[in-house]
Structures are given as C-alpha cells and as structure tokens.
C-alpha cells in the first residue's frame, strides 16, 4: 500500500480528529488495508444525532419497519448502566448491517456493525445507558430497514462508565 | 429496606437535634470554643474507631464559614459537628454490647 493511499484512508477515518501523531504505528499496513476493504466510512454525523429518527435518517436515509424477525436480547433491569449486555439475532436474509440505538442517551447511536456476505446477523455487545430508555436495534436486510425495541430500566446511570 | 433503621437511630437523631437547637449567635471566641469542643469529641470518637464522615464534613464547613468571617454560621456548624461526634460516641459505646442482638447463632 502506498503512502498516498495510506494517508487518504487515515483522513477518512480521522476526519475532525485534528492533528494526529503517527508514532509507533508499526502494524498499520494491515489495519489500513482492512479498513479500506471494509469500504465503509465511519458515520461521524450519525453518531452526533440526538433522536432515533435523526439517526435513522442520517445513517440509512429511509424509515424502519418493526419486525418480529428481529430478536433483541436485553435485560429488564440493567445491573449497572455502565455495562449493559445487549445482543441481536435475526432470521432475515441478506443482512448488510445492524445498529444499536438508545433513545435517552446524549448521543443516540451506540454502534453500527457492518455484516459482509458470509457473516451471520448475530451480534452481542456491551453498551452504556445514562438512564432508563428504549433500546432499538436496526437490521438492514435486502435494502430494507427493520427494527425491534425494548425498554431497559436503569437504576445506576452509566454515563460514569 | 424498611427495617434497616433500628430504634437506636432515633435516639441518635434526638441527641443530635437537642444539641443543634442550643446554638446561639456567635463571636469568634464562641466559634473557637465550639470548634475545640467538636474537635475533642471527634477525637474521642476516633479512639473508639467510630468517626462519622458527616462530622468531618461539618467541621470543615464550620472552618470555611469562620474563614469567611461568618461566625454565626461557623459556630452553629461547630455545635452541630460536636453533636454528631457525641452521637457517634454514644453509638460506639452502646454497640459494645448491642452488637450481639444481630448475631446469627
């Protein structure tokens, strides 16, 4: 990979992050190639949105339809808002991405996972929740957008996390 | 959690409340006297291995008010701190035998 490509990829990933010290990054050729291969720009704008609707609009530009084929596994009461285990699985086919949204967090979008062909649409992660909130998972499949939501109660807020 | 505050807590609160109401308008001397008494009581609580964080906080508040020249407030805080320290002494003393009431046997 040439230096030109390298720095172009860096700029893509780090837009807005300002000056970056490129020291001790010995392993970068793989990383940049991997990130370039993902062919996905980090959705900086979507991560700044303050409502479910704005996240969905910024990230996908279409509306989501609730589906019982999207299964979200989340606790009723989070043991601590700093670490809430949440996972998704779906029987939908041709899934290209999934995303997790927490309506009451200062920034609603938590994570977006890009699912290439050959990777199953099952993802688990641990998220922060500031307070009791609706949690929504979006599944992009066959060019359409599906969703499932659940309220998770939080008694100890996770913004301290 | 209703049962977590046993009767002795009421006693402690009464002890504390009685002492607070005794506060009076104060000069710097009043403050110094009250502060010294509070510190002495808190030191005794320390010997009993039972100081309260609230005593330390109230002592600090008293000192802060005194530094700002508000001796009324400083004296009142010092007296409150003394009451808290005395309540902690009472607690430590009575618990010397009362702890057995809770024991699993």
């Amino acid at each position, binding site marked *: 990979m040439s230096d030109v490509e390298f720095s172009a990829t860096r700029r893509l990933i780090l837009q807005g992050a300002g000056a970056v010290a490129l020291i001790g990054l010995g392993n970068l050729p793989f990383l940049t190639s991997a990130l370039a291969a993902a062919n996905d720009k980090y959705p900086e704008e979507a991560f700044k949105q303050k409502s479910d609707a704005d996240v969905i609009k910024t990230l996908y530009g279409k509306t989501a339809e609730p589906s019982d084929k999207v299964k979200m596994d989340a606790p009723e009461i989070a043991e601590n808002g700093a670490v809430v285990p949440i996972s998704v699985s779906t029987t939908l086919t041709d899934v290209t991405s999934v995303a997790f949204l927490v309506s009451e967090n200062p920034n609603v979008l938590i994570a977006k996972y890009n699912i290439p062909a050959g990777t199953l649409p099952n993802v688990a992660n641990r998220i922060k929740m500031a307070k009791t909130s609706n949690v929504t998972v979006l599944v992009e499949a066959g060019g359409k957008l599906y969703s499932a939501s659940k309220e998770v109660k939080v008694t100890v807020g996770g913004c301290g996390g | 959690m209703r049962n977590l505050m046993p009767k002795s807590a009421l006693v402690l609160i009464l002890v504390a409340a009685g002492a607070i109401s005794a506060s009076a308008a104060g000069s710097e001397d009043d403050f110094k006297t009250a502060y010294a008494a509070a510190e002495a009581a808190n030191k005794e609580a320390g010997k009993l291995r039972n100081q309260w964080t609230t005593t330390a906080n109230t002592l600090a508040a008293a000192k802060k008010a005194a530094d700002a020249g508000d001796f009324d407030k400083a004296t009142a805080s010092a007296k409150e701190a003394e009451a808290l320290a005395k309540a902690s002494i*009472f607690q430590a003393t009575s618990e010397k035998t009362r702890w057995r009431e809770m024991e699993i046997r």
Partner: protein
Amino acid sequence: MKLRSAIYLASAALSLALLTLASTLPSDAADKVDPVADAKAFKKFFTDKFPKVKLEDFVNGPYSMNEDLYKQWQDKEQFPPYEFSLEMGKEMFSKPFKNGKTYADCFENGGIGVRQNYPYFDAKEGKVITLELALNRCREANGEAPYSYVRDEMAALTAYMAFTSRGKPMDIKIPDDPRALAAYENGKEYFYTRRGQLNFSCATCHVQSPGERIRAEILAPALGIVNAMPIYRSEWSGMGTTSRRFTTCNSQIRGVPLSPQDDEYRNVEYYLSYVSNGLPISGPGARP
C-alpha cells in the same frame, strides 16, 4: 437476656449508664467463643433464607439471588471484565524483583492454589495475616516498596492468586490459641457492630437484606462474599481489593474508614472467611 431488653427500653442517658455497668461484666459470660457452631449457624441462616440457592453458589453474590442479574452475569463471564487485571497479575507474579527473587519465593507451593488458606493466624506475631498483607510483606522483604491496598496492582496480584485457587474450598484455621480466638471474636464484633451516621453494620446489609436493593445496588450475601475477592465492579469501572470493599462500605454508611489492613479489617476478614469455610474460591469476581 434481661440486661439486653433493659438496654433496649432505656432512654439514651439511662442506657449509657447501664452500659458502663455492662462493660465491666465479662462480655462473654453467656457467649463462649465457638467458631464451629458460629459457622454452622451462619450457613444454616443463609440456606434457610434462600432454599433455592445451592451452598456453593453463594460465592456468586447478588447473581445467585436474581435471575435477570444471573443472565447478565453469564453474558459478562463469556469474556469477563477482570481479564486484563488477571493477565497483569500473572505477569507481575512471575516478574523477578530487583534482587532476582519472585513472589513465588514468599509463598507455600510458589503461591499457586493457596488463596483458600488466607487469612491465617500467625502464632509468632499473634495476629491475622491476610493475603494482601502477605503480598506487601513479600515485597518489602525483597527490598520493594509496598503497593497501595486499594489500587490496581494489589487487585491484579490477588486476582491471579485467587484464579489459580478457583474451586478450592475456603480452608481457614483457628489454632487453639486464645489470641486467635480473640481475633476471630473481634472480627465478629466488627461485623455486627452498627456504625456510621446511617447506623448500619456489615450485617444490616449482608445478613438481613441480601438480594434486596439498597438505592440501586443489589446486596450480596455475607456467606461466601470474601471467596469472590478481588472483584471488578461496574460501578467502579475497575477492580477492587478486599481492602477497597471494606473501606468503601464504611464510607457509604457515613463512617470514616479505618486504614486498610488495620486490626479490625484483618479480623473481620478472618471471621468472614472462617464462616465461609468449605465454599469454593471464585475470585476474581465480577459485580454490578
């Protein structure tokens, strides 16, 4: 018995007077120190209170009392948050001191699989030695500065030593020595003594109310609570030692904590560990 109810009913002043009297009486008149009976009663109390929880599961703290929590814990245990601390502990444990010796030189069996024997009563010194204290003494004996008892390095070392001892039953011994019995009894007294402005004892939360929520936290049962140490608490966003647990418990009830490893803390650990004898070591643990 009469004395006890009298105190209960007496006014503050009167009870103070009575107590002065009481303290001059031999305090163990009716209460001969009997650790074996204590441990039996302690286990019976918890197994009666939570008939569905298996004895060995009490070491899993609040997770043993609540299904929703249990599931979240299982999810977390797939890749537990104490993983990094554990690795750091393993690395630290094998790295030689400046004099070339290692922690292994200070412990029986090279420190592997020995967590269940701590704390122990040292007859020479006449006091209780905890694992945390033993680790710092090991450092000092080898010319190294001791670690803070409440910080990450101590948590990492004890996490590793607990991990190598997982599943081994807690095995605390009380030698036939009046000083050992006195230390045990002092630990028990500390455990049940109410303190702080909130007037809570350790037992208020961890005997009377395990499984219940206090503010937002679910309380752990006292039985087996030490078997899981050290712990990664989500609330702390990090690891905590037994020392950290004791001192923060004290400040939460508005009591000024003692210094880590003061007599009372070592003794209460001795007491709690002894009454949890037979339950497996499960540390390092993860807690809300």
